[in-house]
């Protein structure tokens, strides 16, 4: 099972619809400081259901919606969609392709979609847990603090995801 496509729209520094097609191998994301690399990673984590705004460097839900520039008005909503190849059946669904999407409105509402259908956050969370995908393996720009400097109790959560 692997991520084949990421579609970002209105998320942080991606006001227009942006598509990335991923290979089955290792992908490297490069570019200058402030260009949007970590924002791309944030989009993936957010679409996978990340609930902690702190983990996404924001404070409130609307912090991930494009804030505008002198040339462009700020966005009113954002959507991020992830498409997975499921030929090996890692997701316990009878589909060769799975798409998970999340929308948020500046008003604060969040919506979760599975193959285009509205579902609850916990449905997405359950599906990802079954597939073995967890936020524990999404390492932000502070490797040591996130993995080592945690309190001993928080480390257990990393281990539970691996169980």
């Amino acid at each position, binding site marked *: 099972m692997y991520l084949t496509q990421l579609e970002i729209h209105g998320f942080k520094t991606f006001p227009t619809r942006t598509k990335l097609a991923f290979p089955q191998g*290792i992908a490297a994301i490069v570019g200058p400081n402030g260009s949007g690399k*970590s924002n791309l990673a944030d989009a993936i984590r957010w679409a996978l259901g990340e609930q902690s705004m702190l983990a996404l460097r924001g404070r409130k839900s609307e912090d991930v919606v494009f804030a505008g520039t002198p040339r462009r008005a700020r966005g009113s909503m954002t959507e991020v969609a992830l498409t997975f190849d499921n030929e090996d059946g890692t997701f316990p669904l009878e589909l060769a392709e799975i798409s998970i999407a999340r929308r948020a409105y500046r008003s604060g509402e969040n919506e979760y979609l599975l193959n285009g259908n509205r579902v609850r956050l916990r449905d997405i969370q359950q599906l990802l847990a079954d597939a073995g995908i967890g936020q524990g393996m999404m*390492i932000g720009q502070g490797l040591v603090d996130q993995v080592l400097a945690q309190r001993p109790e928080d480390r257990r959560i990393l281990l539970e995801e691996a169980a």
Partner: protein
Amino acid sequence: IRQDFNATFQQVAADFRAMVKVLFDGGDADLSLTDPENPDQTGIEITVRLPGKRRQALSLLSGGEKALVALALLFALLSARATPLCLLDEADAMLDETNIGRFCKLLREYGRDTQFLVITHNRGTMEMADALFGVSMAEEGVSQVLSLHLEELREELLAPAG
């Protein structure tokens, strides 16, 4: 459930010790439970002894050494269960050339069972990857992404970029 946790823990602890030996060319490491009778509440202590050095508090380790210990733990968790997707945002930032080589070798190895997306500024890591995405801001405040090949990237890096 407790059996699962303890079994997993034993495996991760063994893999962590092995991974530290791989990344540091020797040395020793331990994971231990602060409260083995209570898997729901226990903490996990990490101790490391690097080659030629005494067992010391993690705090005394260097920046690069701490990064390698963190990576050792991550790869040990992947050994226990190969999660399909793993994002690494500048995990190589503190590593010197030699250690980046070790990091890249491990990514290729674990990359057979896990899809890695790595954000990096390091050329060694870029050369190791199967695909390269360049993020830039032609328009201020607006990101764009291009699928790149390594030869294109070298020009990009040499040009007076933002």
